[in-house]
């Protein structure tokens, strides 16, 4: 009887179709406990900031009420109120939306630029490669925060407020997205270039060339899909870095301008209230930490799942 079951199981196992690459990757990912935890926390944070807007109105988040300024957390204001009497809880909800949107949009710019420059440099090689890589190195030589400060100062306040979906956004959101994208593509470009350098030596590329496939098609249809794993990992981690960059620059008062809230600009000036109003900096700061941490765990799991050989640490 028991031998029957084992043989049956064995036959079942043998007859089961082999796992596809995607299924294998998904299995590796779900086994990574910290990545799953990061993913769950990230979903909760997204629900918090996007679902929260169903319960709290944006006008309420931007409503100033000086008489109750700097009041400590209470039932009406669970996270307290800020220096002009706005509700900190409502602002962390709307600030979270902007912070996450900035992170994602900045990474879209970063990834497009990184892929474009890395792919051209890696595929064509020679003089174009040297030229693009020297430019990349020159960009890397100035610490990102300095570039961000200078560019934020230079481009700041030049774009008028915009209205989307019935909501008004400070024009500085666009500026911040663009400058974070422009100052962070360098590492990705290097990764993409390295991938292209090795993949283009394969026989299937030679075959594609022999059949007269155009360079653009080889780059987009043959090489890029094969180098997608490190790009996905790098883009995921890039969102965390972009959220941090936004927080740094807004913390210094050069980022997104009020009344539009972000987790970063809620912290601007909060260091003057360390003692008297710790809730001013604790809640947005903690949410930034939680988001960045979740994304980093998620990115780590993605790296293990998609790209198991490239593990550096």
């Amino acid at each position, binding site marked *: 009887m028991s031998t029957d079951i084992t043989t049956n199981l064995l036959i079942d196992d043998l007859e089961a179709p082999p796992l596809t690459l995607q299924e294998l990757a998904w299995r590796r990912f779900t086994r990574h406990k910290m990545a799953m935890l990061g993913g769950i926390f990230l979903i909760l944070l997204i629900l918090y900031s996007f679902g929260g807007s169903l319960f709290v109105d944006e006008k309420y988040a931007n409503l100033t009420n000086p008489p109750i300024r700097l009041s400590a957390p209470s039932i009406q204001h669970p996270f307290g109120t800020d220096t002009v009497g706005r509700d900190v809880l409502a602002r962390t909800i709307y600030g979270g939306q902007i912070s996450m949107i900035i992170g994602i949009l900045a990474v879209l710019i970063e990834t497009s630029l990184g892929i474009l420059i890395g792919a051209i440099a890696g595929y064509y090689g020679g003089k174009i490669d040297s030229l693009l890589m020297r430019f990349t190195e020159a960009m890397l030589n*100035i610490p990102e925060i300095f570039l961000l400060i200078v560019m934020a100062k230079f481009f700041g306040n030049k774009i008028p407020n915009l209205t989307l979906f019935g909501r008004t956004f400070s024009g500085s959101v666009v500026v911040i997205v663009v400058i974070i994208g422009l100052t962070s593509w360098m590492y990705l470009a290097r990764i993409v270039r390295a991938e292209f350098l090795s993949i283009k030596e394969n026989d299937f590329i030679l075959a594609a060339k022999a059949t007269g496939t155009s360079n653009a098609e080889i780059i987009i249809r043959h090489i890029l899909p094969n180098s997608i794993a490190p790009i996905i990992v790098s883009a995921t981690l890039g969102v965390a870095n972009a959220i941090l960059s936004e927080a740094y620059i807004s913390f210094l008062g050069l980022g997104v301008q009020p009344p539009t809230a972000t987790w970063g600009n809620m912290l601007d000036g909060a260091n003057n209230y360390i003692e008297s109003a710790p809730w001013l900096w604790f809640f947005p700061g903690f949410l930034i930490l939680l988001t960045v941490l979740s994304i980093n765990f998620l990115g780590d799991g993605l790296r293990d799942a998609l790209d198991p050989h490239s593990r550096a640490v």
Partner: protein
Amino acid sequence: MGDPIATMGGRTTTRPADRERLKRQLGLDKPIIVQYVYWLIGNDWTKIDLDGDGVAETAGQRHGILRGDFGYSLVNRGKPVLDVIGERLPNTLILMLAAEFVIILGSLLVGVYSALHQYSFTDHFITTLSFIGYSMPIFFIALLSMYIFAVLFKRWGLPYLPTVGMFDPQIGKTTGQVLLHMILPVFSISAISLAAYSRYIRSTMLEVMNQDYIRTAKAKGLPRRQIIFIHALKNASLPIVTVIGLDLPLLLGGAVVTERIFAWPGMGRLFLDHVERADLPVVMGILMLISVAVVVFQILTDIIYAWLDPRIRYH
């Protein structure tokens, strides 16, 4: 980028005629590319038009940054940029070198320990902690440490740490005061980098511990201590030299946020203050210095690495 002329004028309104003269004196009437050339190689080889009659008559004074002339600050009028930066540079350096010292020592201890106790509870704990440290925004750990060690300790009647500035003005700038004021900023800067470094050291140490020569050393019965510190650590520290060499100059600028929070009179704060007031010569000077420092340190790192590791040869 703001208005340099307004910065120079100070609080009083400048007369239009003076503004024009200043503009021509600073070369702001020229196209941006000419301004850049003047900044790069100076304008003493040509004449500039000071009175605005269309005839260039006054000889230029500037030598350009390639000949070591960083220009003059617009905020501290007439003060050479190098003097302005030079006043702040030592403050940043002591903060950074102290932090780097703590980072290297701490990450070696933590990294080696968790590599030798791989997959133990402590290793998992340290790995999780280093992930948190790596994701930590520096302002959050700075504000949190200020709240705990200054505000709460004071409230609980414990000895508490100072939070802002470099020394207590009532006591003066003594070594003890500066050290005391350095504790929190150094802690904040190092806590974050320590996380990344110790992960790196852990992985290189793990790699080295699996090498044949370590097995040989074990087989011939060398004491464990000797294997770890002489055979393993020496080889594991090679790649770390690269990381330190590349990170050191970035620390110069990495403290912008820290210096702002702790009101530390260093270069990062100088940069912020002068960006806000459109003091271009100082801003450009600081960016130039940091970029040069990055390049110089990269070359030094390459040379030191080749010297330490005889397997590497440059052709």
